[in-house]
């Protein structure tokens, strides 16, 4: 891990950890917005983290950003910072000045759209910026706001470079959700291990039962797999841009979706009844895992895309294609 990334990860970690555990998650579910957390993160310059320094941003790499998104995912941080970072990166790449405040991605089911002042839309390679005039509230099963927006006519527009291409929003969102899943997986593994060492049955901690140990060990394997897949995808974006990293991003979203499915089920098995309750913190993460599987393309959809490509290229090309993508 490079030095800058280490410092930023630490700062963001402190900010989200200090935000009060699941309190901000409950606040958002009740229709509020954790303004203090948003402001704290904004003060770190996070919104412009992916904007190059010469354009007034921080100039982080996508690898650095993915590390931050994992931290956000680890805490379920209920602020659209990752989305705003992506929106700002694309606006800047298209030569559009980045406005202050929350950026919504798209206009249907936009994450935290009701809290956004502006929205970013992509039509072909043409990126447009719109003021948000109204929002019909909705939510995913993570109880995160996913709103249909009424947008003003565009206030600015630009063309995305080919390296990011016409699918940049979907690709970026897939990477964000995969990274958040990696973080949330790490979290539920830690919660489950902790619980296994605490909860006693038959006179000993349930973590002493081999059946429980084996399940948690298998979960650790999934955590490792999704983390590596996300690093690999972010590295590909750094090397080639979003468009040419579609394969790695797709792989990361497939592995993340599978890991989320397995991880949530395993954690609930270990927690048993207590984990099903509204009062317990586990569901804040498992519901998000289930929701994030679906956003930015499901694992099934991405698998279909990767599979079609592999079938079209043929068996003899699979291995050479894979190794040719090494960064």
């Amino acid at each position: 891990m490079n030095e800058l990334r280490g410092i930023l990860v630490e700062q963001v970690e402190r900010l989200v950890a200090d935000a009060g555990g699941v309190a901000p998650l409950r606040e958002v579910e009740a229709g509020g917005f954790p303004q203090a957390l948003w402001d704290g993160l904004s003060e770190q310059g996070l919104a412009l983290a992916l904007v190059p320094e010469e354009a007034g941003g921080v100039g982080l790499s996508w690898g650095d950003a993915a590390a931050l998104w994992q931290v956000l995912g680890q805490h379920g941080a209920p602020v659209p910072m990752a989305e705003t970072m992506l929106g700002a990166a694309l606006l800047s790449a298209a030569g559009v000045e980045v406005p202050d405040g929350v950026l919504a991605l798209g206009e249907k089911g936009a994450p935290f759209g009701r809290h956004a002042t502006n929205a970013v839309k992509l039509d072909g390679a043409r990126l447009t910026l719109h003021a948000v005039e109204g929002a019909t509230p909705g939510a995913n099963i993570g109880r995160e706001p996913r709103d249909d927006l009424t947008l003003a006519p565009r206030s600015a527009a630009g063309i995305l470079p080919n390296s990011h291409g016409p699918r940049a929003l979907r690709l970026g969102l897939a990477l964000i959700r995969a990274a958040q899943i990696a973080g949330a997986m790490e979290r539920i593994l830690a919660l489950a291990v902790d619980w296994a060492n605490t909860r006693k049955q038959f006179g000993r901690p349930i973590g002493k039962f081999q059946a429980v140990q084996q399940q948690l060990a298998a979960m650790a394997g999934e955590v490792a797999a999704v983390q590596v897949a996300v690093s690999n995808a972010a590295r590909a974006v750094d090397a080639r841009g979003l468009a040419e990293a579609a394969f790695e991003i797709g792989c990361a979203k497939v592995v993340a979706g599978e890991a989320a499915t397995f991880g949530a089920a395993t954690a609930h098995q270990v927690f048993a009844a207590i984990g099903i309750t509204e009062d317990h913190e586990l569901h804040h993460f498992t519901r998000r895992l289930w929701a994030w599987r679906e956003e930015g393309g499901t694992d099934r959809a991405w698998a279909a895309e990767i599979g079609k490509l592999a079938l079209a290229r043929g068996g003899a090309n699979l291995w050479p294609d894979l190794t040719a993508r090494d960064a």
Partner: protein
Amino acid sequence: MRFDLPDTPPGAEALRAELRAFLAEAGRAWTPEIRARSWMGFDRDFSREVGARGWIGMTWPKAYGGHERSGLERVVVLEEMLAAGAPVGAHWIGDRQSGPLILRLGTEEQRRRILPGIARGELAFCIGLSEPDAGSDLANLRTKAERVPGGWKLNGRKIWTTFAHKSDYMIALVRTSPAPEGGSRHAGLSQFLVDLRLSGISIRPIRDLAGADSFNEVTFDDVMLKEDDLVGAEGAGWAQATSELAFERSGPDRYLSSYPALSLGLDALAANPVPGAEVTVGRMVARLSALRGMSLSVGGMLERGEDPAVEAALVKDVGNVFEQALPEHLRGLLDPEDSPAELRALLAALTQLTPTFSLRGGTREILRGIIARDLGLR
């Protein structure tokens, strides 16, 4: 636990190209059964050719027949060999663990005597760990070496020793002093370099369920070992043997065992499209890519001299699940009648091998126990 992707070593592309040309030529002679066995296949002529090209002992000093290349360049060679299903068994163990052990802990005499032969692809090694009553519970082993004038006297029995009947040497883990009363059973174990031609050794092949002679029972009856057949320190055998395991468990051999079937399966599916097959294929390719990243990360850690024992166990566990599931995924997609004969034969051979993937090198349960300990559960 942490995984950091290493950078691709310089020259990797040229090295891959060289390997692919070589393997395409050599591979003409390989039947589907040979490709399915890959590193469980033994072909001395092939290993000698690989050695002649400088692809064994790649990271070792030139003074011992090595080539002073990086560990990540070595990984390129391993990956290409396995993706092609090359029969690398005759040099695999020597290159992967016995050679590195001797290089690290052996005497100067042992290094000069042994390493150049491994690097030329001429000396084959086998692993003498398991015994009839010491499987997962390896520390329960009973084979013992007693000090005698001029050396050691070896008695006991090893089992499941892959390729003992075709190998030149075994690295054996044996007891050299009794476990201390009430103390750790890991004390008093030592490793020996055993020349399999010595008198008093008998090797009985054990036929496996696929009808092949791949592993053996090896009996030692008053076998005389020389003083300098001891490898490393007397009594330090347990730590020595377990530190080898990160090398043994993290390599591409822990997730690529079924790869040749995926490659052929793609062509069969392209010729006979099955609706929805792309989803299953995509899931396999995504897993393959993630596992490759995990294994490369551990390769990078080994290169930096770190001790990624837990990461290696994670690679092997996730990798074994993948390589066991792969033939079953293909089976779920392809009708045998519509499949080309070569793929059918490959799947038939692989199906009989898959149970071994999560046994050899430590069972799934033992690996998950290691991971659970790292998680703080034991």
